[in-house]
C-alpha cells in the first residue's frame, strides 16, 4: 500500500481571502511576523499497490484534472509519501 501527496496552492496573482483572514488573525494573536499567508490544499491519495512511476502519473493526472482548478490554482507537487518521509527523516537526522 502506498500514499501519494498532492499539494495545491492558489496562484500567486490570485486573491486569497482565506490566507488574508488567517494573516489578520495571526496578527491579532501576536504572531504578526507572518506578513503574508496563503492557504492551499493538501491531498493524500491511497493506493493498494506500491507507488510506482505509473501511479505517480495517474496522481498527476488527478491533480491536474480534478484536485486543482487550473484557472486559479497551481499543483505545487505530487510526491510519494515514502519519499517525503525518508527525506524528512534524513533531514531531521542532520
Amino acid at each position, binding site marked *: 500500500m502506498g500514499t501519494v501527496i498532492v499539494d495545491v496552492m492558489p496562484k500567486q496573482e490570485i486573491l486569497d481571502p482565506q490566507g488574508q483572514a488567517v494573516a489578520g488573525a495571526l496578527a491579532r494573536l501576536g504572531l504578526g511576523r507572518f506578513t503574508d499567508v496563503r492557504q492551499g490544499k493538501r491531498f493524500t491519495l491511497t493506493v493498494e499497490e506500491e507507488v510506482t512511476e505509473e501511479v505517480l502519473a495517474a496522481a498527476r493526472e488527478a491533480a491536474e484534472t480534478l484536485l486543482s482548478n487550473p*484557472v486559479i490554482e497551481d499543483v505545487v507537487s505530487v510526491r510519494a509519501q515514502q519519499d517525503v518521509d525518508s527525506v524528512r527523516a534524513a533531514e531531521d537526522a542532520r
Partner: protein
Amino acid sequence: MSTTQPTAYRTDTVTDAQGSPDVVQPWADLGLKEDEYARIREILDRRPTSAELAMYSVMWSEHCSYKSSKVHLRQFGEKTTEAMREHLLVGIGENAGVVDIGDGWAVTFKIESHNHPSYVEPYQGAATGVGGIVRDIMSMGARPIAVMDPLRFGALDHPDTARVLPGVVAGIGGYGNCLGLPNIGGEVVFDACYQGNPLVNALSVGSMRVEDIHLAKASGAGNLVILFGAKTGGDGIGGVSVLASETFDDEGPSKRPAVQVGDPFAEKVLIECCLDLYAAGVVDGIQDLGGAGLSCATSELASNGDGGMRVQLDTVPLRDASLRPEEILMSESQERMMAVVEPGRLEEFMAIATRWDVEATVIGEVTDGTNLEVYWGEDLIVDVPPRSVAHDGPVYERPLARPEYLDDLQADDTGSLERPVDGDGIRDALLAVLAHPNMADPSWITRQYDRYVRGNTAQAMPDDAGVVRVDEETGRGVALSTDCNGRFTKLDPYAGAQLALAEAYRNVAVAGARPLAVSDCLNFGSPEDPGVMWQFSQAVTGLADGCVELGIPVTGGNVSFYNQTGDVAIHPTPVVSVLGVLDDVADRNRSGWDAERQALFLLGT
C-alpha cells in the same frame, strides 16, 4: 510584500505625449476603432498617454459605454410619461434606479449579467456577479436586502453543463449566503442555445429612507476622494498588457490573473461600513468599483460633479506591487468603493472604517478645474475632460435587418404537431411536460441558497414572486419577479419582451403588490450582426411600449451583447424584472392553496 516604487520605471506622461505626437499606439489591440482613436486625439488635441488610452479604451468599450444600445435604450426615458414618473426618485443613468414605496421609504433594484466570466470560471464568475450588483445597490445609499438569480444553461445532459451549473449555483450561494442576503427567486432554464454562453444574471434590491439616497458625484473643491475596501490587484486587466510592453522593466511583469476572485466577507464588512458612514452623514458622493475600476469610478464621479478631480495614483494600496499605472487604472479588483468626503469629516470617516477593519486611503481631491488629472509620483499621466471618458463615448447606429429565417420559423407553427387524442396520450404529454427540466422543481438548486437570513422573507421559492419586508413596524415591503421566455422572444422579439414584462408584472400583482418599476437585463448575440441588432431594437421597443401600457417606468438595467459562439447567437433573452409594493407583506397571496375545498377560478382569456 514590498511597497510600490512609483519612479522605478518610465511612465508615459502628458508632457511626453505632447512632445511625441507620432508614437504608434496599440489602440486596435485595446479594442478601439480607428475613428475612435482619432476622436480621442481630437478631444485632447494631442495623442493620449498610455494611461489615457487605457482609460478611454475600457470606458468606450461596449460593456461600459453602451455604444451599440444607447440609441435604442433612449426609448425607456423618452416614453416615460409624467404619470409613470410618479414614484420615481432616481431614474436611468445612476448606478441603480430608486422608487418611492411610501412612508418615507425608498427602494433601489437592478439586474446585471456576469455571463462570460461565469462560463470561464463558474464559481468565481457567478460569485463576483452577485458582489458587483450588490455594490451597485450599496452605492445608492441603500442597505441591500435580497438577491435573485435568473439563470440560463445549455442542455441539462451536456457534459459542459455539469461543469458550469454546479459552479454557478455554488458561487451565487457562496457569495450571497456569506453576505447575508436572502435569495428570493430567479429562474433556471435549459436550452442548447446557451451551451457556450450560459447566462448568469443577478438582481439585488435595497432599501433606505428617502433622505438617505446617495449619488455618484464629486462636488465641492477641496473635498477628498477616498478609496476604501480591498487592495487593488491585477484582476481583469488582461487586455492592457499590450500597453505594458513599453513600460515594463527587464524583469517583466508578474502574471496577471485570468479571473477575479471574490471575497464575500470583505464585501459584507464593506456593506456595514458604508451604512455606518451614511448614517454618520460623512459621505458626499459615492461610487462602487466594478467594470473598468478606477477609470470608471473617478471619471464618473468627476463627470457628474461640478469641477475636476486630482488623483495621486501611487497612493492606491496594492496587492501586487508590480502593477503599472495603466493597470491600476483598469484593475477590476472586487470589494472596493470610492467616496467623496469633506476634509472636516475625514477623521470620522477613518474612525468608522477602522471600526470595521476596512482599509481606507485618501487618493485625491475634487478641484475647481475642469479636468480629471491623475498623477504618478510627480508625473501627470492623465489630463482629460471626465465627461469625454464617462458619458460622451461613441454612439453607433448599427444596421438592423429582420432575420430571413424568421418567416419560416413563424410559419412552422404548432398546427403540424401531433396531438394526443385519448386519455393516455394526454397523460403522457402532461408527464413529458412536467418532467422537462425547465418545468421541474428547481429546489435542487434553490435549497443551496439561504432564503431566511435577515428574517424579513415573506415569500421565496416556490412562489411566483419573492416578497421581503422593508419596514418591521408597518410590514411595508416589496415583491419582485424576473421572467423571460427566450424561445418566444426569438419568434417575435417585440412581443417576447412584452411577454416577459407581462409575466413579471402578473407575478408581482398576484402576490398582492402594486407594480411600480422595471429593471431589465438584455442578453443578446453580437450587435455587429444586423439580425441580432434587429432583435434588440424590437425587444427594447416592445418593452418600452409595454411599460407605457402598464404605466410603470424602466429604472435601469444592463445590456449583455456578444453572447454567441461563432456566428450563432443565443435566443434573444431580455430578462425583465418588476418590483411592486405591499403596504403590509402579511397581506401577500401565496401561490397555491392553503386549505381543502377552495375553489379554482381561471381569469383572463
